[in-house]
């Protein structure tokens, strides 16, 4: 299936969405900054906090009930000390009572102009090729750029609406499309799925919602930028994508966070439903603040991403470039329920300094003639640890299921770790499961060859590592791929030589 030409890129600024809406709805000339500054609820988590979040979000009753059910379940896990501990990660004891679970966006550091922003942050944005207006937004500069972005988003919104596509914030979807949200929310990732999914369901603040009607190929890439705001707050967004029969959508997700000394918690949930003949391509560039060289600060990234190929011949493809976060715990998965469905996972995970990543996928083959492909490239530098963890399960009735997995790890330095933990569970005699993994360092002969052509050792390593990731980056939509390459080059710069 040919990809649509990404002629336009729609960017919905999340968690700034609500911020944008407030700005758009209010008469922004009236000193709104002061109002927003005070809108962070006190730290701590109990049923009252859940009710407070719900009231701030103007949740309908069913949503509040949903939050409370999830919260009670989460509390029972917390009480029984059932935080997931199986990953190859050293996770500090997170005090869930010391986090503020609601912070109105806009409550981020305010600067009068870009001159006040850390030049290093700006330099990074510059190299990433993020447009100036977005730079300002990401850096937390309170300027009209925000309004511009709203108009950008809304102008495309009209075009999307012509195709019957719904693309809006999660809050807006709850308000305007409650039937769709009720039908699909939690259908792929129920709140009982895991500790962090339960927490997210209880406290999520916003996120995005996307519905592509039957037979519609979304004419542009849909994009969401997430960022974490205030110190001491958590970020809990939800994304729900429903691709109806025969539809197609390519969805991009970018993440950044400002530098902070303390750790911030990010626990998101992404659910994708692909009906008969539908195809969803989900691409992520995760660049949350990774902490400094000493491992201070950085985002704890605990994310549950899962899609279901509900109808026959549906296809879900995950592509990710993970360079940020001090801890990444993330396994974008596909439930291959319909017959002849396909699941793909393409990943580059780069860790440096004291970052830890345990990431991979789950491919659950339920239908007949289902196929999954996993290609994972891990690069470890500094004192980081980088693990691939992936499950391929071929159920009893999944006749003629096929899986191919290739997991390659590269080590840059002798104080880091690269690990591979695949789980291959086969319960059907007609299944064909193949897994290969390699771990090595950059080839000496390759470096020598490059150097003989006048290329410095640093540049040689950058070339070779980028080549190592090329297969994955090629899966990203055009604009994102450019951004991804630049990001990777920046990350490598500080880690080699």
């Amino acid at each position, binding site marked *: 299936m040919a990809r649509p030409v990404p002629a336009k890129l729609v960017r919905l600024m999340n968690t700034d969405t609500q911020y944008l809406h407030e700005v758009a709805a209010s008469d922004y000339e009236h000193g709104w900054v002061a109002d927003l500054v005070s809108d962070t609820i006190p730290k701590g988590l109990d049923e009252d906090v859940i009710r407070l979040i719900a009231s701030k979000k103007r949740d309908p009753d069913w949503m509040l009930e949903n939050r409370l059910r999830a919260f009670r379940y989460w509390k029972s896990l917390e009480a029984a000390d059932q935080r997931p501990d*199986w990953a*190859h990660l050293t996770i500090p004891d997170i005090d869930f009572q010391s986090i503020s679970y609601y912070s109105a966006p806009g409550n981020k550091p305010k600067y009068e102009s870009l001159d006040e922003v850390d030049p290093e942050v700006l330099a990074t944005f510059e190299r990433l090729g993020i447009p100036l207006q977005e730079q300002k937004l990401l850096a937390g500069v309170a300027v009209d750029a925000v309004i511009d972005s709203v108009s950008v988003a809304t102008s495309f919104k009209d075009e999307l609406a012509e195709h019957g596509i719904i693309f809006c914030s999660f809050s807006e979807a709850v308000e305007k499309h409650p039937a769709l949200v009720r039908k699909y929310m939690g259908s792929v990732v129920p709140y009982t799925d895991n500790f962090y999914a339960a927490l997210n369901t209880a406290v999520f603040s916003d996120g995005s919602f996307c519905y592509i009607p039957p037979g519609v190929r979304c004419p542009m890439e849909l994009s969401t930028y997430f960022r974490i705001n205030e110190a001491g707050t958590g970020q809990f967004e939800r994304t729900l994508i429903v691709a109806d029969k025969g539809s197609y959508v390519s969805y991009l997700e970018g993440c950044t966070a400002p530098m902070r000394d303390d750790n911030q918690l990010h626990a998101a949930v992404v659910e994708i439903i692909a009906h008969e003949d539908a195809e969803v391509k989900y691409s992520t560039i995760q660049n949350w603040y990774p902490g400094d060289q000493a491992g201070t600060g950085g985002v704890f990234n605990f994310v549950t991403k899962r899609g279901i190929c509900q109808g026959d011949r549906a296809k879900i493809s995950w592509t990710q470039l993970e360079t940020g976060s001090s801890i990444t715990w993330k396994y974008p998965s596909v439930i291959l329920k319909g017959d002849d469905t396909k699941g793909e996972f393409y990943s580059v995970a780069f860790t440096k300094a004291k970052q830890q990543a345990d990431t991979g996928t789950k491919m659950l083959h339920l239908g007949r003639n289902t196929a999954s492909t996993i290609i994972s490239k891990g690069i470890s530098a500094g004192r980081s640890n980088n693990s691939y963890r992936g499950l391929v399960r071929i159920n*009893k009735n999944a006749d003629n299921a096929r899986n191919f997995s290739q997991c390659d*790890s590269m*080590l*840059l*330095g*002798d*104080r*880091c*770790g*690269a*690990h*591979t*933990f*695949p*789980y*291959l*569970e*086969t*319960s*059907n*005699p*007609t*299944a*064909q*499961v*193949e*897994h*290969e*993994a*390699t*771990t*090595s*360092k950059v080839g000496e002969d390759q470096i020598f060859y490059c150097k003989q052509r006048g290329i410095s050792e640093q540049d040689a390593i950058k070339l070779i590592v980028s080549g190592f990731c090329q297969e994955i980056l090629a899966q990203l939509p055009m604009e994102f791929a450019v951004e991804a390459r630049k990001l990777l080059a920046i990350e490598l710069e500080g880690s080699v030589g």
Partner: protein
Amino acid sequence: MARGTRQDDVEARFIEAHHRLFGPGLNGEPGFLHNLRQKAIGRFGSMGFPSKKDEAWKYTSLRGILRTPLAVAPDCTAPPPSVRAIHGLDAHIGVFVNGRLHAGLSVLASLPAGVTIAGLGDAPPALVAAHLARQADFRGHAFVALNTAFLSDGAFVHVPDGTVLDKPVHLIHVISGRAPTLAQPRTLVIAGTGAQVNLIDTISADLAAPSLVNSVTEVFVAAGARVARFEVQDPAAHVSLVTALSAYQLQDSHFQNNSFTFGGQVVRNNIAMLPDAAGCETLLHGLFIARGRAHVDNHTLVDHAKPDCYSAENYRGILDDRATGVFNGKVLVRQDAQRINAYQSNKSIVLSNTARMFAKPELEIYADDVKCSHGATTGQLDAEALFYLRARGLTMPQARTLMLQAFARDIVDKVPIEPLRSVLDERIAAILAR
């Protein structure tokens, strides 16, 4: 670890049995062994048996057999059953009946001077003290702790420095019991500097009731020594088997283990290799054929702690009926263990839609100048090849058997002892023809 009362009962039975057999007030034991047993039972008590919540036991449960009240370490008073040597094999044979060397059944006449095959009780105490319970970690593994807690005798093999044994050593553990039994064979092998030995390890069990065999084998491979071990596991379908094999290797040594599993109810092999010096070579080969309701689980760990070593692992499995296979192979390369070359391959063939295979090949790497890889495949016989054979006039069952034999042969061919290879070929042919 949170454990239910029921599980605690299971452990309590063994702790009580230990108290009865080895409790305070019993004299006549060497202090070393007594202390070891006390430490081991203590560890066993605090660890308890693993459950499916333990990552390493995710796919394998021994609850069934452990819930059965098992008679611990019975003394074999009945006359030993007939012991089958390998046809056509000229070997030094040590027969151990319930852990004790049976001189009458053993064939040790031509053993070269300096080489010892004996019961642990008759072995040089200094060697035993230096190596026993040093290789197999009873502190971290409940089944090793249980074996160690009841340790009173076992097989001992010592090949001194520079000695090359032309003939293989065949250790036969004879186990018998009428009631449900827990048998716990123990083996200690010491190969001195530059020594060479081929070791065949088999169990000859006559167990009338559902039973558990929990064996521990420790191998010390000194610098430049070469040890190749061949283990054939073929217990009855009502007998479960848990084994631990731990090998410790010094500079430029070679250790090779070949395990063949054809029978048993639940079989769990825990293999831990520690090449603890540069220049070591470690090879692990395994073949299992699981049918009926058999559950065969191979767990291997190659712990590369030192640089410039090579390890290769090759496991194959054939699963039919309602059988379950597990392969969990881990290659660990520790920091500064540079220039490690480690390779691992696991291939399985699933023949029925009620059989299952769980493969978990793992790499955990902390050094950068390494070449490590693993590959795992699960699938069926190549349809094209089957068609080719049938086009040459073979029936479907003939073609299938032929191809399965070829699949198994890759592992069998690694056995350099011809009479053993013939026995394996025959056994495999017989199983596959069924």
